[in-house]
């Protein structure tokens, strides 16, 4: 790949063959980098030169490269998705770095996200939390007309804010406890605020929280690192809503919950 910019950087990159092997940092040069490149395009340049040298490229997850699929991760200079607020790694551009800088790149660090190769981790625990109850139980067909369920605009907008979570895992990676409360609470909030989500509201919170615990995520100690690092600016209010619903369910609503499937 022809790189024709004027930045030269040193990268310290975590390389790890698979989950069973110990990893270590390797040092690479990234040369002639343009400030208009995205961070991942800079890694593309490094990988192309590795491939030309018949060496294995650095493995990292990425797909849409426009900040919405949630596939890219990377802990850059000690911060999930790098130094800028409210963006993903794929939206980070090299103009945010200085010529001559050394950049440290690590995978998400959390017990519940094992490394599978180099910078890619296994986030399937997130899917299992969603499978435990992150839905409204309606089958296709036989639903009412969309406008039969009026929803105040402020509620719809707030539910939307929670629904913008892209499931990237930055919240877990940022948390010293490796907690998934921000992620889990975003879905619980979205559905819990909407009228369609009411019938299963308390059952849902119990199932999803149980699954979250079963996956080995840590507890929340209200440091707020998750909110600070979330590329979609999901707020701590979601966690408060989840806790409120969780306690309400435990204390007052056993009879309407019935038997909760505790995942697994």
């Amino acid at each position, binding site marked *: 790949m022809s790189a024709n910019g004027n930045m030269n950087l040193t990268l310290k990159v975590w390389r790890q063959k698979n989950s069973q092997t110990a990893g270590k940092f390797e040092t690479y040069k990234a040369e002639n980098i343009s400030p208009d490149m995205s961070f991942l395009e800079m890694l593309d340049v490094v990988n192309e030169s590795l491939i*030309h040298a018949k060496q294995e490229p650095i493995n990292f997850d990425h797909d849409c490269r426009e900040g919405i699929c949630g596939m890219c991760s990377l802990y850059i200079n000690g911060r999930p998705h790098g130094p800028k607020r409210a963006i993903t790694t794929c939206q980070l551009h090299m103009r945010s770095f200085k010529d001559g800088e050394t950049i440290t790149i690590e995978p998400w660090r959390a017990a519940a996200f094992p490394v599978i190769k180099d910078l890619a981790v296994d986030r399937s625990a997130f899917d299992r939390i969603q*499978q435990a109850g992150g839905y409204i139980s309606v089958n296709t067909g036989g639903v009412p007309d969309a406008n039969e369920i009026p929803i105040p605009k402020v509620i719809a907008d707030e*539910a939307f804010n929670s629904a913008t979570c892209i499931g990237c895992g930055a919240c877990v990676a940022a948390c010293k406890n490796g907690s998934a409360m921000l992620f889990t609470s975003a879905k619980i909030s979205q559905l819990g605020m909407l009228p369609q989500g009411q019938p299963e509201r308390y059952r849902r919170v119990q199932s999803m929280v149980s699954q979250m615990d079963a996956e080995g995520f840590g507890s929340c100690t209200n440091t707020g690192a998750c909110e600070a690092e979330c590329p979609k600016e999901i707020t701590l209010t979601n966690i408060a809503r989840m806790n409120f619903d969780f306690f309400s369910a435990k204390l007052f609503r056993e009879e309407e919950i019935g038997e909760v499937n505790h995942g697994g």
Partner: protein
Amino acid sequence: MSLDSKIPQGPLAEKWSKHKFNLKLVNPANKRKYNVIVVGTGLAGASAAASLAELGYNVTAFCFQDSPRRAHSIAAQGGINAAKNYRNDGDSIYRLFYDTIKGGDYRAREANVYRLAEVSVNIIDQCVAQGVPFAREYGGLLDNRSFGGAQVSRTFYARGQTGQQLLLGAYSALNRQIHEGKVKMYTRTEMLDVVVADGQAKGIVTRNLKTGAIETHSAHAVLLCTGGYSNVFYLSTNAIGSNVTAAWRAHKRGAYFANPCYTQIHPTCIPVSGDHQSKLTLMSESLRNDGRVWAPKTAETAQRLRKGEIKIDQIKEEDRDYFLERKYPSFGNLVPRDVASRNAKEMADEGKGVGSSGLAVYLDFADAIKRLGEDTVRAKYGNLFDMYLQITDENPYKQPMRIYPAVHYTMGGLWVDYNLSTNIPGLYCLGEANFSDHGANRLGASALMQGLADGYFVIPYTLGDYLATIGPKAIDATHPAFAQTKKDVEERIAKLLSLKGNKTVIEYHRELGHIMWEYCGMARSEEGLIKARGLIQALKDDFWVNAIVVGENEEINASLERAGRVADFIELGALMVEDALARRESCGGHFRVESQTEEGEALRHDDEFAYVAAWQYTGENQPEVLHKEDLVYENVKLTQRSYK
């Protein structure tokens, strides 16, 4: 093999209802005896997998991403059309049907498009019931916006993230079925071939992207919901991983590939900034509701602007050419995508382009901000403006966006009949991966509609008919076709891994993209296409000698994954060129320079080309055979499209 589209008889508005009644049903108790494979978990795949599992079938679903939620449908921004007529502005199922047929430049099937318009209203109901947070008005009811190619306001949206919200809705329905045990989900697993035994699709061969394990899976039917092939152009708005491999492998096993040259070039993307670029980013068509497209009136002004001798705000109002408003007074900035794209290209060709490369025009929000206030504009398009700022380092609240067309969607795809079945019994194709509903040009906000229509409301009916016909007897996975197909896949992987040349797979991909964009992009000529034919053949020959593929099969190997996909794109590129050559007319996104009106608009030749071109693979380096399915219009009169 003849092409039977299986379009039901009878009046247009009754075809689907009658057809549904005539389709065979599978007894509820028997449904659990059937296995169905769904490849891809975007809008079409996730909605199909969830809906079929709800009916009681055993579904096995596959995606190459690490989670089904990451399929590229997630990136769709603007909205989803539905003929709800909530605005009381004259919309109807017939009008949505008519707009879509016309927008597709009269190259889509009437019956399919009518059904799409008919079920569009159910989609919105379904999504709202799932908790999709569509935009609402203060009264609590759903809001709408306008989109290109329509004069009614029928587009439902969730800020600039409609695809994300719809996909998360379908993903939640899928999750519920995974939890119930009715869907078995394989992530980080790529389909590399389809198993055809005794003339029927009976399974697939996959590679586990973590371990390299090559596995066979059997089922009574296989649904390909694997998206489009825009990445044949290397630079497109598609995700890096989006690829044609599943559809192309099916094609090489006998499935016809229809209208491959019909590609959509989206008019409003962020221009290319340099050779390093790995993908392009779309700015939603919804921006054309409030943004005004313009270029400097003279090439001289544009040149001074590019050199930095003058600034944008020094260009007086009378020196700006709002070319879409000027040429198309009734649709203005909301002309369909193909028309908007060609006009932007025309400006650049005439030397009136802006930005350092000259390959851009402006999309200006100054008037909208003046009229509505910055806050209102932010509420409508905030995330898009942020995205633009992030990529270009320019603030679109203060200066106009620079935009240029980029490849965005592919209308072509596997040929399917009215039941969404390919010509291989048991092999179905849904969503962008099939060719069926958009003709030669797709209207904005129709891709999400089609993906979900196919998955939620068409396949649950039509698949049952096939399954009832073949019966619930277990599939014989010991049939030699399974072992043979697996062996073919393994041999191909070994061949790819043996390539230790001097050029990376991405370099080949970029070269292919240049050829496709130059000769099979926004304007195509016989001369250029013949040249492209030779260039692609040479590229293919070179690839299989000089490419570098590193690493092993038994591990995560991005180099190997990309190599297989690029090899397939090269072959597809060759077929696109043949299709574009054979279609000696202009229609929709396919613009042959030899066929244009005096005003430079696309000129169709309905007497010769009102057909679907379905290509049959006949063997390595053999010419493909063209089959024609005539398009019959019983309701709509074919006219020269006009948006003036």
